């Protein structure tokens, strides 16, 4: 059974077809990358999948369940989580509190218990904090736990978003340009983080511009251009696909890609 399937997803903004009939299938436990030039519709596709906007056509299935019309919060409860290209950090919270919010769907106390701080809440807070600290450790931010989130560097904020998404224990994790703005060293760290996530059995869907990272970690790659599917295949297949090289990588990119293969 596939972890995530999309069928004929389409959406238009003011007459422009941002995503136009895109379908794909993500097997469980792999890294599935979506690439394409700027404006190809990658982030919009993520928004369609995570319920932030609605497709005019087709549908989305999560682990075999039809989740087409569901709101983001309901999708989250079914095990879909994501990060954002334009950071969506809770900047008034501390680093660890950001991640604790990620645990929300696993927290069970009612509002009255919360107001009176019943022992159950204290117990649960301890559990949440522990799980959040663990998630922070996995992205290498364990030391920053008590700092204010607004004080972190850009690259760390990217990781904080990953930790926050991880804390919700998703089955499928959508990462939107996790390595944007990272230097090569940081990018390699992100790569290691992604490998670690997949190793735990989480399915990763990745949108990323850093081709080296994409080629290194992806099991399958889906290429978009102008909102449509251009190609899909393994890293090797995509690197040698003439249409992809033509439309996306360009001449220089083609030489690089060829070099990387050779």
């Amino acid at each position: 059974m596939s972890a995530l399937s999309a069928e004929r997803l389409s959406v238009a903004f003011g007459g422009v077809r941002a995503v136009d009939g895109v379908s794909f299938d993500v097997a469980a436990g792999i890294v599935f990358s979506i690439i394409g030039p700027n404006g190809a519709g990658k982030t919009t596709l993520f928004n369609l999948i995570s319920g932030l906007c609605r497709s005019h056509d087709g549908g989305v299935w999560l682990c075999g369940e039809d989740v087409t019309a569901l709101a983001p919060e309901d999708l989250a409860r079914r095990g879909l989580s994501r990060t954002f290209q334009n950071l969506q950090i809770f900047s008034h919270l501390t680093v660890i509190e950001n991640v604790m919010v990620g645990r929300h769907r696993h927290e069970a106390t009612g509002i009255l218990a919360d107001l009176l701080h019943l022992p159950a809440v204290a117990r649960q807070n301890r559990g949440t904090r522990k799980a959040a600290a663990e998630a922070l450790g996995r992205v290498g931010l364990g030391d920053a736990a008590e700092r204010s989130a607004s004080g972190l560097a850009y690259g760390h904020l990217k990781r904080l978003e990953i930790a926050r998404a991880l804390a919700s224990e998703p089955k499928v994790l959508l990462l939107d340009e996790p390595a944007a703005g990272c230097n090569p060293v940081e990018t390699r760290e992100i790569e290691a983080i992604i490998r670690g996530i997949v190793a735990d059995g989480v399915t990763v869907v990745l949108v990323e511009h850093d081709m080296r990272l994409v080629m290194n970690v992806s099991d399958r790659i889906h290429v978009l251009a102008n909102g449509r599917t251009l190609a899909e295949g393994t890293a090797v297949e995509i690197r040698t696909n003439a249409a992809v090289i033509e439309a996306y990588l360009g001449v220089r990119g083609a030489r690089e890609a060829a070099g990387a293969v050779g």
Partner: protein
Amino acid sequence: MSMLAPLERFRLLQRRRLAAAGASKSILLDRFRLLRRRRLISLVPIVAIVIILPLLFSSAYYYRVAALVFLFGIAALGLNLLMGFAGQVSLGHAGFMGIGAYAVAIGPTAFGIPPVLSFILGALLSALVAFVVGRPILRLKEHYLAVATLGFGILLAIVFTNEANWTGGPDGMAVPQLILFNWPLRGAAVWYWILAVSFLVGAVIALNLINSPTGRALRAIHDSEVAARVLGIDVAQKKLMIFVISAVYTSIAGSYLALLDGYITPQISGFLRSIELVAMVVLGGMGSVAGSLVGAAVLVILPQALTLFDEYEHVVLGLIVMGVMIFLRAGIVPSLAAAFGGGRS
């Protein structure tokens, strides 16, 4: 009495927890750290002030002004939960003050409901009203939310003004005294203690909430609704919840005001009162519990101090409000805390 119950329960729980934890030093230290993390420690200076202030009071006038500070502190705290933590503006919160106030006025006079029960019913009624109007109103954002809440507050003020058979109309109506166990609550000093303790209870509950799953979710919504949603937070439901809680705080403050003054007019729910509450929250510091009290203190005490300036009173008041917001733009408590301690508040 009913207002004191949560505090009693809270103390009991604390004691029980302490007992269970044993008295070993390391555990106590741990407990202290937990307390600190729960920010209850920020209430210690307020408790100290509550106890020390009466030593400086030379007359009932001081008690009354201080009682009003705590009273509006409760209302501002309620609004702060909505504005400072959940990031939702309300320009109509005085409407809930009105509901609370008229509940303790109308309940006993028109229906023979005992004042204490009317007090509770008023809070419940506010919660109900907030629940009903909250869902559609809270779908709006920013200025549109502002005008919708503004309209809501004005609607209530119009009702209180026009339904003279119940409310006495614009001239207002007398409020029967609150009598607990044959002991009529009167005198500014009595109200000082009632309101100070009520504020502290409200502050404890607010701090509890802030550091609970619900509270974290609300603060998350403030910063990014989108991120909160994809993490599984039902944003609409959480906003509604805090709107209701906030309404209850404000309603309780309204009930207290009616009982304290023994007389109310529809001004209590007027537009200007709503604006005053917002100003208290923003002046004191959005998202700061102590700030709610400081904001209330500023706007309650200033008019008393500014009588010095006679006809220039409003000129000076306007200058002070602008000056505070320009130079302490995060609000008095957070800005000063950052300047002095570098710590967060």
